């Protein structure tokens, strides 16, 4: 089975600030020592498990010099090939749509059975977009694989477990070729010794395949990044009173408890509401509270 794992580097946590991210996106310099993005470590572990002890896998990263950290760790995990993908215009942009196009174009010209991607928050669209472009199935949130089925040309598949919403899981039979994605911590990564890491660093210099993609265009405008700003919460929409109702009704609505649904913690000076009573009284009070907060329906 031919396995490709897509990995990417991240800024070390203390450096992940808006100004640094802005600088990194504009221009990469050697002072940026990236680290492997955590979900990619799980992806590497899955790729290693899928390849088996005798097999090897290919690691691919994209971007500029910061991707080197990811490829180093990939080599330490046992990647036999390391590929650095960049576009002719200098680097792949930080737009998932463009990255997915580039990855799909590169993978489509080769014969991989499984492509494994890390997905830090789980909501990154790149793995699914790659699968969509290639016309392959995608299984996200993989948290383990059970067994390979007998390999023959007509039916090649693998049994995986996938985490769904609300604690549900399912075991699936996925036919090759397939794109898989894992989130950080779903597949516990093994420790890689310092010695192996050092060997990977030394061995990487002469063993990275540089692949340059042509500038991709389909005649339509791409997504354009306008600005990076510190995170700021959006003003929440609230249930404002109907403008057609009378002034008295609108005032009543605004003053009433149902006017807004702001979730606020108790203010320091107010303190928490503490209730004493029998177990029955306390349980009933708790249920009233849960209903008020809409954790339980009123029916």
């Amino acid at each position, binding site marked *: 089975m031919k396995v490709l794992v897509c990995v990417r580097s991240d800024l070390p946590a203390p450096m992940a600030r808006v100004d640094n991210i802005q600088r990194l996106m504009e221009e990469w310099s050697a002072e940026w020592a990236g680290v492997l993005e955590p979900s990619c470590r799980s992806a590497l572990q899955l790729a290693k498990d899928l390849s088996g002890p005798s097999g090897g896998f290919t690691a691919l990263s994209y971007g500029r010099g910061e991707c080197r950290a990811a490829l180093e760790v990939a080599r330490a995990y046992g990647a036999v090939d390391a590929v650095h993908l960049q576009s002719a215009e200098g680097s792949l942009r930080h737009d998932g749509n463009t990255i997915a196009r580039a990855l799909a174009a590169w993978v489509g010209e080769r014969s991989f059975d499984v492509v494994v991607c890390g997905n830090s928050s789980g909501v990154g669209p790149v793995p699914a977009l790659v699968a969509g472009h290639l016309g392959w199935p995608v*299984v*996200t949130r993989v948290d383990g694989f059970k067994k390979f089925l007998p390999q023959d040309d007509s039916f090649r598949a693998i049994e995986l477990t996938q985490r769904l919403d609300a604690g549900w*899981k399912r075991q699936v039979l996925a036919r090759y070729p397939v794109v898989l994605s894992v989130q950080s911590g779903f597949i516990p990564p093994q420790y890689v010794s310092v010695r192996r890491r050092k060997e990977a660093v030394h061995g990487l210099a002469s063993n990275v395949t540089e692949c340059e993609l042509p500038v991709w265009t389909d005649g339509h*405008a791409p997504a354009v990044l306008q600005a990076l*700003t510190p995170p700021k919460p959006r003003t929440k929409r609230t249930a*404002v009173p109907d403008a057609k109702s009378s002034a008295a009704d609108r005032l009543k609505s605004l003053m009433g408890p149902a006017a807004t649904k702001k979730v606020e913690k108790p203010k320091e000076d107010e303190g928490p509401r503490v*209730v004493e*009573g029998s177990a029955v009284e306390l*349980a009933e009070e708790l249920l009233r509270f849960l209903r008020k907060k809409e954790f339980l329906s009123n029916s």
Partner: protein
Amino acid sequence: MSFDGAIVEPTVLVLADKSAGDWSTVTLELLGDAELLANKVGWTVKVMVFAAPGAVRDEDARKLAAHGAKEVHVWEHEKFGPVLVPAQYTHTLRSYLDESMPRLILCPSTPLWVEGVAAAVAPYGALVASDCVSVKLNVRSDLELVRNYWNQKTHATWTFSGQRPWVVCLHPGVAGVGRPNPALSAPVERHQAIVLEENVETLEWFPPHPSRLDLVEAERVVAGGRGIGGPEGFAELTQLAELLHAAVGASRVAVDLGWIPYSRQVGQTGKTVRPRLYMAFGISGASQHLDGMRDAETVVAVNLDKEAAIFSVAELGLVGDARAVIEELVRLLKPSERAEGARAGAAAALSNV
């Protein structure tokens, strides 16, 4: 299946989520944003729902209309159960897009929705943005969206322009739900969906169990400490967790006493959780424990000691025997059979899969 050449309709398609029994909050938030955008440029707000036959009643559709939907399209199939499996919707969504390509698709930014929608729209060359905080049309009628970026360390403002379709996945809980207008109505069209699972076939389902539900991901956590008295107390706590669809957590003391595995420990030396609801039973609230749960949205604490530190972070504190309160809660919640009913419904739906 290229997008080029296809006519894009002036519509906003909202993908509605009803997997948890009622419309999810993010569905109503999406409708609020869709209505604002549509009113600005004269688009029509259409809603697409994937549901088991009979799961979406006319009154459910009326609720969508009250929040701004102009048309409701319900795609029904026995396999569409309470568990969201977007791969099952992909074929139906593509069939719909082949006939009617909307200008904008809005969907919840949760891992499985993003998976299903991104895989479905990729062949059309659509631009996809996930984890979005807000979306608006600028003066040139380009789509301007703000999304969480770089592990939520920053917000990035992106612009989508051109003729290709746009897909925006909205982060749940950021937009808020506006006041509905019950006087509004929308026609409901029901269609028979086709589910193709040629390449990824479900072999077995594993229902949620409080002891397996990931603490870090759980929206609700019920945690126990020394005050619930022993492993039997945790058995009752697990019952309560099942009724509330919550994960079971524990303090370090309970773990050290061997009442529950370490994987359930919340705190500095355990897991850091950020649920919407955290209920602490018999936990005094050592600073190490508080460090692991202080970001919970709503905290409820039950403890015999009125001076316990846990009450300082609790929105509601109940002074009493934690175990007795748990028993009482289980007794009060069980007759409604809400949880069992939902679970039975889920099992019945899944037995058809």
